[in-house]
């Protein structure tokens, strides 16, 4: 009786959702972030609903199984534009973005009211490896150190340590592909020493990021510059959202998302920029580090390259743009802070161009070279650059490392699978 009352009361709480992103699943994330009654959480332990958004490639099934089993009972699983695994009972698949928030809230509510059974575990509850004891007391190695209990090396450094005489814990682990601090789909083997990244090796490249269809249209025919520039600003604003969320500025991150949603040539970035400056984002946050060498910047292209001082921008070769008075903006430092300043400047520039282009009804003129928000598109679309992180990450503090990853758009670009964003 009392329990029933408690559950009834609990069913009015916000639905806590842990999103597992598949290919092009980010649209769901951006929609849910602005929906009242839904709370996106960073850890599967904090969620009551697991949302599988987008197609999950087969090489990420195993991690998905593990994330699935990490949700505490009772929990529900929803598949959004993704094929549920056939052996699961009680699966819910949603394909319409507009129906998603309500489905999530309903799943949470029904779960608590007992109208829906909790999803059951997939993997057996046992250590991934057997205990491998060697020593007198069952320990792995000599004395009480060393060995591999449960098949896992102990957090100790048996190698010669170049950093200091102390065997301060080198901690090796694998992060991703569903860790919210990394780009969707990316996984890496990381060795930390204290708070410092000692080694980073990218294991799974992030999913390609969808480009707005207007960029593909621009390869075939002249398109209005206003439309192209708004799509660019939209792309950048959504990246700003995840970075600001990571930096602990939830309010500002949501206003970036709102700005993206209601983007028009009349939109102004001033409010968001002022807010960021006043909150001390550029001074207090983890933004030092992640400086690109000239060669790395050229390889990556796009805003990251311009933030490192290269003024490569295919737009300056287009007569349509030239008539609007376009000149690339650049920064010099090339680090994370410079990249965010660059991104803000580019969003502002895009909005300005969009206003002027709308007034002049300007269209693009070249079709063989397009500057996408991700980088230049000459013969082929911008390719994946995540291997760059292996060189860039070592030596950064953990906070700086994640902020650097967020500031770099390393994912490849691809055609949007579904409908165009509104």
């Amino acid at each position, binding site marked *: 009786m009392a329990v029933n009352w408690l559950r009834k009361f609990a069913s009015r709480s916000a639905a*806590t959702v842990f999103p597992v992103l598949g290919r092009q699943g980010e649209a769901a994330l951006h929609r849910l972030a602005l929906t009242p009654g839904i709370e996106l959480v960073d850890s599967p332990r904090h969620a009551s609903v697991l949302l599988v958004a987008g197609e999950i490639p087969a090489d990420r099934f195993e991690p998905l199984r593990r994330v699935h089993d990490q949700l*505490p009972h009772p929990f529900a699983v929803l598949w959004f534009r993704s094929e549920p695994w056939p052996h699961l009972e009680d699966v819910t698949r949603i394909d319409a973005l507009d129906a998603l928030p309500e489905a999530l809230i309903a799943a949470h509510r029904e779960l608590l009211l007992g109208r829906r059974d909790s999803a059951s575990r997939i993997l057996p509850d046992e250590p991934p490896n057997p205990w491998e004891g060697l020593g007198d007391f069952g320990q792995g190695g000599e004395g009480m150190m060393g060995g591999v209990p449960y098949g896992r090396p102990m957090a100790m450094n048996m190698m010669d340590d170049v950093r200091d005489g102390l065997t301060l814990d080198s901690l090796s682990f694998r992060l991703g592909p569903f860790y919210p601090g990394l780009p969707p789909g990316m996984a890496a083997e990381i060795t930390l020493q204290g708070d410092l990244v000692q080694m980073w090796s990218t294991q799974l490249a992030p999913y390609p990021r969808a480009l707005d269809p207007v960029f593909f249209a621009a390869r075939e025919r002249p398109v209005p510059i206003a439309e192209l520039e708004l799509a660019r600003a939209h792309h950048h604003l959504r990246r700003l959202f995840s970075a600001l969320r990571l930096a602990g500025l939830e309010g500002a991150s949501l206003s970036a998302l709102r700005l993206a949603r209601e983007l028009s040539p009349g939109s102004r970035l001033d409010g968001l920029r002022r807010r960021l400056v006043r*909150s001390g984002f550029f001074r*207090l946050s983890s933004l030092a580090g992640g400086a690109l060498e000239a060669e790395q910047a050229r390889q990556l292209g796009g805003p990251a390259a311009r933030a490192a001082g290269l003024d490569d921008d295919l737009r300056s070769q287009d007569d349509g743009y030239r008539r609007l008075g376009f000149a690339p903006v650049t920064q010099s430092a090339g680090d994370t802070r410079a990249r965010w300043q660059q991104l803000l400047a580019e969003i502002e520039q895009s909005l300005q161009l969009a206003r002027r282009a709308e007034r002049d009804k300007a269209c693009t003129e070249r079709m063989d070279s397009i500057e996408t928000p991700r980088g230049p598109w000459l013969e082929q679309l911008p390719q994946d650059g995540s291997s760059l992180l292996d060189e860039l990450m070592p030596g950064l503090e953990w906070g700086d490392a994640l902020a650097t990853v967020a500031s770099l758009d390393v994912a490849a670009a691809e055609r949007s699978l579904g409908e165009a964003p509104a």
Partner: protein
Amino acid sequence: MIVDQLILPLLMVLVTLSVGAYIVAVLDRLMAGAFGAPRGGNVWLAPLTRGAWLLTQHANATEAPDWRAWRLAPALYLALAAIGLAVMPWSASLVATDLVTSVVLWGSVEALATVVIFLHGWSANALLTLIGGYRYVALGLSYILISMFVLIGVALPAESLQFTQVVASQEGLWNVLRQPLGLPLFLIVGLGMTFWGPLDLADSTDLAGGTASEVSGPPRLVWDIARAAMLVAFSGVATTAFLGGWLGPWLPGPLWVIVKMLAVLSVLLLLGRWLPRLAPERCVTLMWVVLLPLSFLALVWAGAVALWE
């Protein structure tokens, strides 16, 4: 006698604890709404329904945790917050335990909090929780030092280590004016100790929740309540040490304490929503290079003023 000395003070602390934690949750939601979080649902009901949800959720297990420490850590943190609230006077006579060394006891609450937060991160036997625990230990020592220097400063004019005496010594002039550096420093320490907002380095988003990233269900509820209660305890001690506690015209003493605590809480929660999280490296530098010398200065200032008076 048992009723007077045990049950009533206990009740008082429990009520402050639960009401305080609830108010923190509501205020924080209001602030979040003002800063642009999607509005929806009832702000006054939301913390309660969330609590009910966590009560119905199972407490999960990790692989080979230190069960005892893992389950105890949230409860101990809550107990520390309760100790803080117990030594905080509501009026000259209304105080749960009027220990003669209550200022030092509060200092030891801060020191023990370091232990408890580290245990919470360490005992889950998981990666991100461990990093969160270490981060806190690396910073915790500097928080304790700053707070102790500042609190010794308020004990000087009172010539006592007792919070009731500290308030009594502010009859003429509140310490916030007598020792202008004290309150800001103390509030920064408060944000650090509860890892709230800009100083949320132990339970941060870049660690997917840090020390709390592996807990669910009732233990998580206790941990959340404990953090909120610790913030309340901090605002209580700040009110007592710097804002003259129960002193004030017109209103009865306890009401003044409540008003002042609410004001301090609002400032803390506002800072929490307004500022981004500090980089840990920058935070260490800030603490040791800027704030610790400032706290020395605050102490010297307090000593000079005490001699001059």
